[in-house]
């Protein structure tokens, strides 16, 4: 029972990741593929944040500093830092993806991957 309660978050994150992979592999529309990539990105961020939690921990902010041996009372700041930058970079790269999709649409006049492949063969 404890194992289930302790690992439930990981399972939900795994399901979220698989939903993203499903969208990436089975959707035909390029915009939906980009959304699926963002879902995968969110699941990765949730995974890292989940690793940084401690039971009953406070936010890692304390004027005056923390005394030695009290580290367990504060959440791990490292995943927060890494995911903070990952979120901003994710938004910026989504912008690049949208720009690429726009150029593809300009060229092939469609967003469906099967029709784009047909257009490439001609």
């Amino acid at each position, binding site marked *: 029972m404890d194992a289930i309660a302790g690992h439930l978050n990981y399972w939900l994150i795994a399901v979220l990741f698989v939903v993203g992979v499903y969208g990436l592999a089975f959707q035909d529309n390029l915009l939906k593929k980009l959304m699926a990539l963002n879902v995968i990105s969110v699941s990765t961020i949730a995974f890292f944040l989940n690793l940084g939690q401690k039971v009953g921990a406070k936010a890692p902010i304390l004027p005056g500093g923390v005394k030695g041996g009290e580290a367990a009372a504060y959440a791990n700041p490292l995943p927060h830092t890494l995911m*903070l930058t990952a979120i*901003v970079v994710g938004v910026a790269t989504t912008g690049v993806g*949208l720009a690429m999709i726009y150029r593809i649409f300009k060229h092939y006049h469609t967003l469906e991957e099967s029709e784009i492949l047909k257009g490439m063969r001609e």
Partner: protein
Amino acid sequence: MNKSRPTTILDTCVRLIIPFYLVYAIYVLVHGHYSPGGGFQAGVVLAVSVILVQLVQDPNPRWGLGRDAAVVFACLGTFMYAGIGLLTMAWGGNMLDYGVLPLGEVEAEVRALGTLGIEIGVTMAVMGVFVVIFNLLRGEE
């Protein structure tokens, strides 16, 4: 994008809320040492205030950042970050080792000042890049 004027309600709401956005962004930036916040968040809030005006009012409003100015901001921010790193090397430390800068006596305070410097650079870069991306994806008039 249609060229119709914004309604009075939207226009007034935007005019009321923009100063608070700007003050909040500056607060998030300079208070990032003592509360949740920092360069990335402040840059996003600044970019959102610029984008809000472009959405509600003209696409090319009199107030705000144009595309060229935003590109300049993005370049300046990245250059500022790297430039502070080069400055610390010029004073004989490692790259981005702020303790060697001649800004004060206590090393921790000098490091806090150096941190603030690069946070300002990050803010400018993020704001510029987000405004540029929105500006381009929005399209021409």
